[in-house]
């Protein structure tokens, strides 16, 4: 008669990504994973593209000419941004893991993100002006 389940509710593999009802730390976690997946994808893409280097100057310079339009540069900026966000977020994780600033991890996260955004801006300005 009693329908006591005694089992945990089923976890769903995408739940970490669902932003509703999350606080700062939860968003940091989601941000870290999304950038991680993006960067991993880019890493292998990058390795494949660089194989053009081995094929000699013409192939590679033709490729470089193709990617020098603003849309490609913007894409590249996204990668740089992801790397910077992931890196600074990672610093939070490493510091808190070893007991530094655990009680102030929220403030630490915001401070690092401010630095990250500034770094992204500097890169962005540089990439579009050079």
């Amino acid at each position, binding site marked *: 008669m009693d329908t006591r389940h*005694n*089992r*945990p509710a089923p*976890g769903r*593999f995408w739940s*970490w990504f669902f932003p509703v009802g999350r606080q700062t730390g939860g968003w940091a976690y989601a941000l870290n*994973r999304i950038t*991680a*997946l993006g*960067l*991993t994808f880019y*890493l*292998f893409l990058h*390795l494949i593209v*660089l*194989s053009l*280097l*081995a094929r*000699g*100057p013409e192939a*590679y*310079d033709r490729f*470089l000419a193709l990617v*020098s339009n603003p849309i490609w540069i913007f894409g590249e900026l996204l990668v*740089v941004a992801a*790397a910077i966000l992931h*890196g600074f977020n*990672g*610093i939070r*994780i*490493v510091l808190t*893991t070893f007991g530094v600033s655990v009680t102030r991890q929220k403030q630490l996260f915001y401070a690092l993100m401010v630095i990250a955004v500034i770094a992204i801006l500097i*890169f962005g300005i*540089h*990439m579009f002006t*050079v």
Partner: protein
Amino acid sequence: MAQVAATQGVSKPKSGENVWLWLVKIVSGPLLVILLGIHLIVNHFLSPGGLLTYADIVAYYKNPVIPVMEIAFLATVVTHSLTGLRGIVLDLKPAHGVMQIVNSFLIALGLASLAYGTWLILTIASKG
């Protein structure tokens, strides 16, 4: 008894993740922050005009420090990203057999990327 434990939500400990894998991640992370920082700053700011042509890159690789650093960077980034990816796959709660396959795949992918990348770096360095 095992069944009772299962209905109560305590599964037997599965060593799909362990202290060593985690150490690799947590050590390679900060290392990457340093290496990637150098990689980005050198590529985008320090090299005059950036590394925008094939010739630039070949010239850049003449400095023997560069290939060594790039290989180190490659090894670290591949390790970090694949162990990280494995962590995300673990959250999909794969069966033990599936995880074995994933493990083999990731190791193969890692080694292949490393071999290929090293060959590429050395090839470019030798062109100078």
